[in-house]
């Protein structure tokens, strides 16, 4: 497998606050990596750096030439448009001709079960539907690397399950690389192959999902152990 993303000694500073400190992360194509940690630990910053939305203060970020990324945000911004146009706009902005964009957008909407709402206002959708629509747009862009910033944190349990099911289908069908942040450890277990634990902008554990959840971390990664203990009760 080839390296899809490589962050070397990356630091990001906002004024006096260090959001990331000397982070080293490398991801192979097809890997599914979960970022976990408390609020303010640097998960979202790391995702934005990986997606090129934030410049690093120090270090180096490289993304493989054949990688095409799409990002799904915690609260997707719905353009003032119809559901269909929301996806079409995304495709058109990335260079897809308008007519082709319509066809691909409809296919994407069918995939997330929103085809019957194509002409409705995107802003009139529920939170879960909006997140499915954001997934549809990301899907339509046909990326091979998807970044998700707490994609289900603001959803009710039913919508959470629905979005997670769609994500699972997506990764199973296309071997897409996944880098996502989540507070839901059950979701991390189900979707990730590897877990990175962040605290105060530092990577304190980077382990396969099985090792992170099932092996004793007390001695090797005490901070991650405490986090897990706190989260799992």
């Amino acid at each position: 497998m080839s390296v899809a993303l490589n962050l070397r000694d990356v630091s990001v500073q906002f004024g006096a606050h260090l959001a990331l400190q000397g982070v080293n992360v490398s991801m192979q194509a097809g890997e599914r990596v979960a970022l976990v940690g408390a609020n303010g630990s640097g998960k979202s910053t790391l995702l934005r750096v990986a997606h090129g939305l934030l410049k690093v203060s120090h270090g180096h970020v490289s993304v493989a030439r054949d990688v095409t990324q799409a990002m799904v945000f915690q609260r997707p911004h719905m353009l003032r448009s119809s559901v269909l146009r929301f996806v079409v706009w995304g495709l058109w902005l990335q260079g897809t001709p308008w007519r082709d964009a319509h066809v691909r957008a409809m296919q994407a909407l069918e995939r997330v079960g929103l085809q019957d709402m194509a002409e409705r206002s995107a802003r009139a959708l529920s939170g879960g539907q909006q997140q499915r629509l954001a997934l549809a747009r990301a899907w339509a862009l046909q990326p091979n690397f998807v970044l998700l910033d707490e994609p289900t944190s603001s959803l009710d349990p039913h919508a959470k399950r629905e979005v997670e099911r769609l994500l699972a289908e997506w990764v199973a069908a296309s071997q897409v690389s996944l880098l996502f942040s989540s507070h839901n450890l059950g979701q991390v277990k189900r979707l990730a192959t590897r877990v990175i634990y962040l605290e105060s902008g530092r990577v304190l554990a980077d382990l396969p999902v099985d090792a992170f959840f099932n092996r004793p971390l007390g001695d090797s990664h005490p901070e991650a152990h405490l986090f897990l203990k706190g989260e799992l009760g």
Partner: protein
Amino acid sequence: MTTFTDTALTALHLLTELDPLLWSIVGRSLWVSVLATAVACSLGVVLGAWLGVARFAGRDVLLTVLNTLLALPSVVVGLLVYLLLSRTGPLGDLGWLFSLKAMVLAQTVLVLPVVTALTRQCVEDAERNHGEQLQSLGVKPWLRSVLLAWDERYALLTVLIAAFGRAISEVGAVMVVGGNIEGFTRVMTTAIALETSKGDLPLALALGLVLMSVVLMLNVCISALRRWRQRMDGSGTDPVQGVLV
């Protein structure tokens, strides 16, 4: 009280009888202010949207100047435009002084900072909240400013209406550059000032009523727009705010 009642009755009479002098002044006022608002909005929305997204050295200074211009007294604008258009001024060759064109120019200068500053604020807020999601799609700043301005189009309609309200209700600038010439450059606000000083209160009051009606209509439009937008969006989020002009 009798004087007030008589004045009000005479004013209503002038309105209902479609007094040609009164309605010619009203028509001229609307024409000047609509044109000035259109020109100011064409320039101000583009400039404001760009300022909302662009980051460059000296931007903060530019924004401070722009916000200061919001409080520019209309007579000062009138004076500046007068100096520009006077025979010895840089635009003196145009021969616009004491014409409707000069009044349109003065109101445009007066309203342009309002449109630019409000549009900038509106687009900058949108950029802060959603800009990175457009960036994520690879959208460059200039296109982002266009998209965000389009996405905020209902809020910008409110800006347009506020700008029109500022234009039609100002008196100083058009008085200075237009000269308040009867049948030529006399508009509602300058006529109200003149007729009041002459003691022709019914005409002044009738014009005042029309002016108030125009402002009232603007606020009715904003309310209707807000209700329509909420219905279209299926929610009451981020409503268009009414403006008092």
